[in-house]
């Protein structure tokens, strides 16, 4: 089992979500985060002065999935989330998930996904 964490532009969430659904992925969790990276912070004007906002609003998606789904999901996310501008975000894959439990039924592992 793998875990995918990705950070995308908030305005792309809807699209990514729909693309994943179409690809058969239903389980995922989304959260609101603030990111820094190559994308420069923007300058917020307010009254007569400015402030540089370094941490930009991003969306994090976490997915736990079977090993064989990883490539598909990577492709889907990259396609749906890309604008080509700096700040599109990144996807990280980790392979350390050793166990899953579905709370409702107590089922474990693949069955629980």
């Amino acid at each position, binding site marked *: 089992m793998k875990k995918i964490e990705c950070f995308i532009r908030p305005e792309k969430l809807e699209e990514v979500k729909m693309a994943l659904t179409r690809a058969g992925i239903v389980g995922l969790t989304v959260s609101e985060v603030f990111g820094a990276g190559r994308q420069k912070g923007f300058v917020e004007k307010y009254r*007569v*002065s400015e402030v540089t906002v370094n941490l930009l609003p991003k969306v994090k998606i976490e997915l736990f999935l079977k090993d064989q789904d990883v490539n598909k999901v990577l492709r889907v996310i990259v396609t749906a989330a890309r604008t080509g501008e700096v700040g599109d975000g990144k996807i990280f894959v980790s392979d350390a998930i050793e166990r899953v439990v579905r709370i409702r039924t107590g089922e474990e592992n693949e069955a629980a996904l």
Partner: protein
Amino acid sequence: MDITSLGNSINLVWMLITGFLVMFMQAGFALVEVGMTRIKNANHTMLMNMMIYAIGILGFFLLGFGLMFGGVGALSTLGVDGAVLSREFTITLFGKSFGLFGLSGFALSGITSMGVIGFFLFQLVFMDTTATIPTGALAERWKWKAFVIYGFFVSAILYPIYGNWVWGGGWLSQLGASFGFGHGLVDFAGSSVVHMVGGVCAMAGAAVIGARIGKFKKDGTPVAIPGHNIPMAILGTFILAFGWFGFNPGSTLSGTDPRIAIIAVNTLLASATGAFAAMLYTWWQQGRPDPGMCANGMLAGLVAITAPCAFVTPLAALVIGVIAGFLVCVSVWFVEWVLKLDDPVGAISVHGANGLWGIISLGIFADGTYGDGLNGVKGMVTGLLYGDVSQFFAQLIGGLACFLFVFGLSFIFFKVQDMIMGIRVSPEDEVLGLDRAEMTSIAYPRDIM
């Protein structure tokens, strides 16, 4: 019921209702200030705005009203003859007497005239406006205990004394009768008495208390610290604009004076052009309209028209508002970039700079159709453009006196208070937020679930 007492009733009803509208402005100030500051200080800023009302009432009732109006004499529209408020402390210089403060009416003791009692309410809510202005400029770092003491200072002493000079029969109002400067300082509804006093006191306070942590970079460049709820600040601006229809038209103390119509219209027009000018200015300067500055622009127009509203034509009101709208933008910039003062809500610029512009604009645009006999001077109040230079000088002298007296006394007050007890919270408390540090609870508690 005879016709005179019916007329007095109309006047009393008018003065009370407009006074209630002015009282409601307190809610407007609260919203503007809370909206333009940060979440972590929202309760503190809100409670300052509520408690200044309570504290101000006490200070003005016990001491302030007597100092300000103890010697004002008759209030003819309210059927009050000259016997009640008739003790002014005066000194004599150059063979002229200078009224400095009143000496009767403290705690309303001995006063049975309902006209005076209603007048007390009306004047009290005006004082309250002054008192609340500095809470915006000193927000997000003011120690609660220091603020409470300030509340008594401004309501019992600072405001009443300058107020006496202009409205209580004191020396500035006599500049005309004594020295031939027009009608003396004329300030119809308080551009100087209420707003400039508040703005200049805010300036002294901001200078003594220093800028919020993070407001200026090491090289002195100001950094924006956005307020947490701009729609709230704009709602507050609406409430203020609404209340101003009490402020200005009510200042006739008479509902039977038809002049109330043009006063209200001038108030309306200046508020519109003030907002419009600020919109154009920020659009041009920042590329997009700035909502907070538009709100400041509307308030600036209102502050500026407060003195001249009864004396100028609608077209002049438009012009006064336009200039106010630009002035507030430039002044906010000046305060931040040149004076390096930190004023989260723009109180110094809205009330101080435009309060001054208000009395000066009267000296320029007064059209000579109103004010016969005002301050004991025969003839109409007439400005520069209509040929009376001396009135213009009276206004300048009044503005100068306001600045020197209010800045001086306030600066000393804040400095001494700071030395004795410290007026600023610790840096830790400031970073943590004043709601956690000085209030029992934060503004927007949130179950995580």
